[in-house]
């Protein structure tokens, strides 16, 4: 499903599921969150030893208070695919954990209709010493099934994961791809009314990817209530009926996924200005990103690419005010935020060496010879002026996420062409 590229297209009918969206307004509420508060007390100096407690019993433990959720209220209707987006640290994962009964709320209430299964990470609780059979049963019981029910469903799980021959193999002998497939299959078979999912969507090889996409669409159609936490805007627009944007633990916006996604991009930009200490009054963006996406060789928008498959990064921009000497840069970074690639360029037809006048639109494409190892990556985007790489006017971290899949596992993030020769030394054999 294509992204909507223009903000003024909001009123246009959205995707084929549009009729579904109107049904949803009449559906009963499946999740009701009211006035949720969560404060983490982070010890300034962690006293983790009883000894220290005993030595200084009266020493006041000093805490830094981190207000993770502030008065968060929203409803999710039965059968809705609901996205929660926000930057790292915006409170979205904490919210999911409170909803999943992993964290305790400090105030407010969460009410749910029906059974719930959280998926914070794939394969949590897998024991490498046990066979797939035992692990699947254990995991299913963790998700609320009875052991006999879990055993009954074992066949379906293993079949979905395509691991029929390995059902009695210990997990420690599984490849990482097999593990991911098994974990995902367990999740898919969870027969709960409500699923709480934290960025586990994109896993496995090409065929499995397709299967997962089918499953998510299937769950949508089946009318399961799904809450998805992510900062992959493409996924939000692709799957979600509605989305919610969190910032600093507060609800900024709830509504149309496309609109929320754009608000998210704008919010990222504003934050940058605050951090950079820009003079007030200049808090609107001189450059606006209208759209950004990735394409495969086939020209289709995608978020996952096979190893060694070339990637095209595309973006459309509009200058709201003139930016002299504008330079545009993309950074490809790993999930751990290690920059792998940087691409910098300027407008090609501008005589003044890249001045971008107000009102001007531009499109950028970068063709990347993809030598990335399998894994999740993010794209940061930035604009600088005066041909000075330090004079940043726009910085949008984690603008897009994408996945590289394949089975050539490597310890290095990037591969390169090389020739290696290993020839035996003529030894002095006796």
């Amino acid at each position, binding site marked *: 499903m294509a992204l909507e590229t223009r903000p003024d297209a909001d009123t246009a009918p959205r995707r084929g599921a549009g009729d579904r969206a109107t049904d949803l307004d*009449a*559906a*009963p*509420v499946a999740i*009701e969150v009211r006035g949720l508060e969560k404060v*983490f007390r982070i010890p300034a100096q962690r006293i*983790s*030893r*009883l*000894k220290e*407690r005993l030595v200084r019993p009266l020493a006041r433990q000093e805490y830094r208070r981190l207000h993770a959720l502030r008065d968060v209220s929203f409803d999710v209707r*039965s059968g809705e695919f609901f996205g929660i987006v926000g930057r790292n640290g915006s409170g979205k994962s904490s919210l999911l*954990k*409170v*909803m*999943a*009964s*992993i*964290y*305790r*709320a400090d105030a407010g*209430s*969460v*009410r*749910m*209709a*029906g059974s*719930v299964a*959280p998926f*914070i*990470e794939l394969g*949590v*609780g897998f*024991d490498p*010493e*046990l066979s797939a059979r*035992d692990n699947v*049963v*254990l995991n299913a*019981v*963790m998700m*609320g099934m*009875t*052991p006999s029910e879990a055993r009954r469903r074992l066949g379906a799980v293993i079949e979905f994961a395509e691991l029929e021959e390995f059902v009695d193999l210990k997990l420690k002998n599984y490849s990482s791809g097999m593990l991911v497939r098994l974990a995902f299959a367990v999740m898919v078979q969870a027969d709960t*009314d409500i699923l709480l999912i934290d960025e586990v969507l994109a896993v496995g090889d090409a065929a499995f990817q397709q299967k997962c996409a089918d499953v998510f669409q299937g769950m949508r159609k089946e009318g399961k209530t799904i809450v998805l936490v992510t900062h992959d805007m493409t996924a939000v627009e692709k799957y979600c009926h509605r989305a919610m944007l969190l910032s600093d633990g507060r609800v900024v916006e709830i509504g149309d996924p496309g609109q929320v996604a754009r608000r998210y991009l704008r919010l990222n930009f504003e934050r940058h200005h605050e951090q950079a200490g820009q003079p007030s009054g200049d808090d609107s963006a001189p450059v606006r990103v209208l759209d950004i996406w990735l394409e495969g060789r086939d020209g289709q928008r995608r978020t996952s690419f096979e190893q060694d498959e070339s990637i095209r990064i595309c973006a459309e921009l509009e200058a709201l005010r003139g930016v002299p000497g504008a330079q545009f840069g993309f950074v490809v970074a790993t999930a751990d935020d290690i920059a792998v690639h940087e691409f910098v360029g300027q407008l090609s037809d501008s005589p003044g060496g890249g001045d971008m006048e107000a009102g001007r639109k531009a499109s950028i494409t970068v063709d990347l010879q993809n030598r990335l190892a399998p894994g999740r990556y993010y794209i940061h985007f930035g604009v600088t002026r005066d041909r000075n790489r330090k004079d940043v006017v726009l910085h949008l971290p984690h603008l897009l996420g994408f996945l590289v899949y394949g089975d050539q596992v490597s310890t290095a993030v990037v591969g390169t062409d090389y020739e290696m020769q290993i020839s035996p030394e003529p030894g002095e054999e006796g």
Partner: protein
Amino acid sequence: MSAIEPELRPVSGPSALAGGTRRFWDLTWLIAVNKFRVTYLGTVLGYLWSLLRPLLLFGVLLFVFTQIIKLGKHVQDYPVLLLIDVMLFNFFQEATQSALTSVVQEEGVVRKTQFPRLAIPLASVLAGTFNLGVSLVAVFVFILGFGVGPYWTWLLLPALLAPLLTFTCAVAAILSALYVRFRDMAVIWSVLSQALFYATPVLYTVDIVPQQFRWVILLNPLTPIFIQVRHWIIDPSAPGAIDAAGGALHLVPAATLFVVICILAVWVFNREAPRMAEEL
């Protein structure tokens, strides 16, 4: 909408038993069975290994306390008494030791799934109980081979194991909850449990303890259990717990402490359970 539509119910948040008691027991049982299977079926020698440790300890103690310090001279059937005592205490020590770190080790499920926290230390104790069951089969073979019994009082073994198990669970729950916050509990407990070993009539019988220290030994909730083990399993002519203590009144402190520790366990674990995911 439709009649089958489930109604909204409040989400209770994390706790010791979150997700219903049925699921709690299912999980405890499954984890324990899996742990047990990993130790036993993992290696052919698995069973022997787990039996070997207490047996070696038994061998050393037997040598020391019959050949060097003639502690067992006046105790009838001292070797088999020592054997069953060592097995029982070994269960207590290993179960509490493994429960201590269990919650921290299972960090993944605590932080990333909705999981009844208490199932984790209890599964450690339950797996230890399976081990004990298997060991006791060997122990009773030894006892019979030694020419002791069988006595009808052997049927009362569950009545001895029940309080031992309860006490072990209580201690395990307290330790596992505290270890999340205070990592030096591991060191403290290794010393404390060693001290408890000597404060429990494992090596000796209560009657040889000097009168002025006897109250200390009798304060230990494990003591009456071990006295009764001797009376019911090894030597019916030996005094039972009440006689050995010198009247039921003298068992009140141990019984009180037993109850206090059980209540403390429930209180501590319930207090810590909701915060465990954040503390880890």
